[in-house]
């Protein structure tokens, strides 16, 4: 494990409320600021929250992957991470709770030229939206899913999530969580994702690299990013501030690329296995759709690249 990551507070999108959105002569100091809606700052995330850190990696990954930013769309659900769509200066959709994946499905199928990123939280993607994500992975639709996992429902004040480790305190498990948690990489692996990785907000460089990887890979790609929620999860469970979480991640993380996903489940104080677990090839949904229809219908099949109406 490298330890070159800086303090997340340094990396997060900082408040720049005075910068006008359309000002041409403003030269951003931070190279990632061009990816942000600076006219929407300050953001709503708490001090020490890891979501901003992941956005920083996302912006750097966009830069590094040299994507045409006019063709990148970000889709979020509801929750703290759901607000990412509102802060990135891209076509962005803040949809309904749990439904970022099916919205993204329609977006991608109607315009396959778009790079469609689904950026949302663990509760949004795996509790209320759990059915959608396993089906999108099964289809192997070309979506880039970034799941920020802070083990808790932040926006509503710290309730149980499908990822909350057994023993952890939340406002709806005041005597400790007794429900088994989802092992997200194992679930995505089983459902058919072609790329599955886990990093933490401590691993900003690895996370950036993983994001570049999925921008370049076709098919359903999934990155789980563990992030601290100092206001709720850390505090409730006496895990300290954001910085303490970074130290904790540094101490507990073990990089094991290619680890069997069945072995990467998380516990409240056990090791955090990080790395790229799955990187494989499966036929992508639209390719399957097109080849099936072309084979069955021959010349009668009308393949349309972009379903744009007049």
């Amino acid at each position, binding site marked *: 494990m490298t330890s070159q990551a800086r303090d997340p507070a340094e990396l997060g999108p900082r408040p720049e409320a005075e910068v006008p959105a359309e000002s041409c002569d403003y030269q951003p100091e931070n190279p990632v600021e061009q990816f942000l809606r600076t006219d929407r700052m300050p953001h709503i995330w708490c001090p020490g929250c890891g979501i901003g850190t992941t956005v920083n990696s996302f912006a750097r990954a966009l830069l590094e992957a040299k994507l045409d930013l006019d063709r990148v*769309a970000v889709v979020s659900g509801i929750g703290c991470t759901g607000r990412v769509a509102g802060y990135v200066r891209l076509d962005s959709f803040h949809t309904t709770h749990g439904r970022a994946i099916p919205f993204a499905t329609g977006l991608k199928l109607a315009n396959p030229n778009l790079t469609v990123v689904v950026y949302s939280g663990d509760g949004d993607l795996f509790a209320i939206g759990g059915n959608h994500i396993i089906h999108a992975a099964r289809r192997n639709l070309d979506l880039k899913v970034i799941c920020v996992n802070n083990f808790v429902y932040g926006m509503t004040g710290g309730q149980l999530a499908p990822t909350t480790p057994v023993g952890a305190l939340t406002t709806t498990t005041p005597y400790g969580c007794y429900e088994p948690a989802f092992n997200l990489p194992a679930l995505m692996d089983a459902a058919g994702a072609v790329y599955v990785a886990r990093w933490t907000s401590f691993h900003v460089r690895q996370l950036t690299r993983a994001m570049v990887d999925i921008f370049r890979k076709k098919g359903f790609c999934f990155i789980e990013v563990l992030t601290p929620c100092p206001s709720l999860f850390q505090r409730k469970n006496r895990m300290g501030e954001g910085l303490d979480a970074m130290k904790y991640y540094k101490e507990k993380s073990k990089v094991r690329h290619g680890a069997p996903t069945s072995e990467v489940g998380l516990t409240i104080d056990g090791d955090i296995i990080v790395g790229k677990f799955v990187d494989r090839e499966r036929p992508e949904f639209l390719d399957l759709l097109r080849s099936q229809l072309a084979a069955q219908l021959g010349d009668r099949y*009308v393949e349309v690249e972009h*379903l744009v*109406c007049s």
Partner: protein
Amino acid sequence: MPHADPRGVLTGVHFMDGDHAACEGALAAGARFAAGYPITPSTEIVERFAARIPTVGGVFIQMEDELAASIAIAGAVWAGAKAFTVTSGPGFSLMMEHIGFAVMTETPCVFMNVQRGGPSTGLPTLPAQADMMQARWGSHGDYEIIALSPNSPQECFDLAVRAFNLAEEFRVPVMLMMDEVVGHMTEKVVIPPAEQIEIYPRRHTRLPPGQYKPYAPGPDLVPEMAHAGEGYRFHVTGLTHDERGYPSMNAAAQDRLVKRLKAKITRAADRLACYEEEGTEDADVVVISYGITSRVAQRAVEMARARGVRVGRLRLITVWPFPTRQIRALARRVKALVVPELNLGQIVLEVERAAAGQAETISVPHAGGSVHAPEQILDAIMEVAK
């Protein structure tokens, strides 16, 4: 207005059921994306779309549930497509949140509901008209939608085209409120040549990215759209938002946005009002109905006339927004309004409200599972005409 893309138009004279005709209407209107989840008695619409769309040019996807289907279409619309979903009963209940999302984000799209008996699983294969209030009020918050009610397979085609046109014009979800009888009955359906089908085009902005504000309303209170991938880098949210599309969560922003979303429809209510009226000029009694019930009501009206009653009929084609002004004017001239419907009294409440005591309002309820016997409606007419 421009004309339909001939690739989607199955011009000719057909013997076709209402579900298939609704699908052909969607194709003629330019719908090139549909997402659905199988549910009786609406499934034939997406089955036909799945069979037809590969040779027209577009995509059908069967989603994992109705929640998914009802927001996948919003995604497709923001990518540039005209899109719709189709459902019935329990599926319509699941779609409510995304009707609200489409209202709030001003996503033009069409929801087709082939109504069956409820509540819950109810009567999957048998008719009802019991989702009329749900179509209007089923999602949370204050809003207006447009709902159309066909009474024949021909109208399933015609009103499907109109539904898409209204969705585009007002940037609102439009409900095509069919019922099991209309959906499953087979009759002659004439599909005109493409050049005779007018299409309301997407209200796409002509402004360059720097000047475009996604939710700055035009003179008719409807903003112009951009699509993902065009360089506008816009933001869409279901949160209360300002003209830039940015979340703006305060009473003033709420007041501005929600009132505009309502007013863009209510201001056009007279133009949207669409109904068929016959024999009301000198009538003592007028039967007000919609959908399949209007055909049974017409038979009852003919029977009543044979018995010497001066009775007229008014068939609602646009049910929402409700033509309050028109019904109120009618109520001033007649003694009673008789409202048969395949529910225990939904649209009759609107009729009563519109009549405002000017005419007696009689409900002729039916719990669904069949249509009224004409005699049931006749009895109500004769009773009130005494």
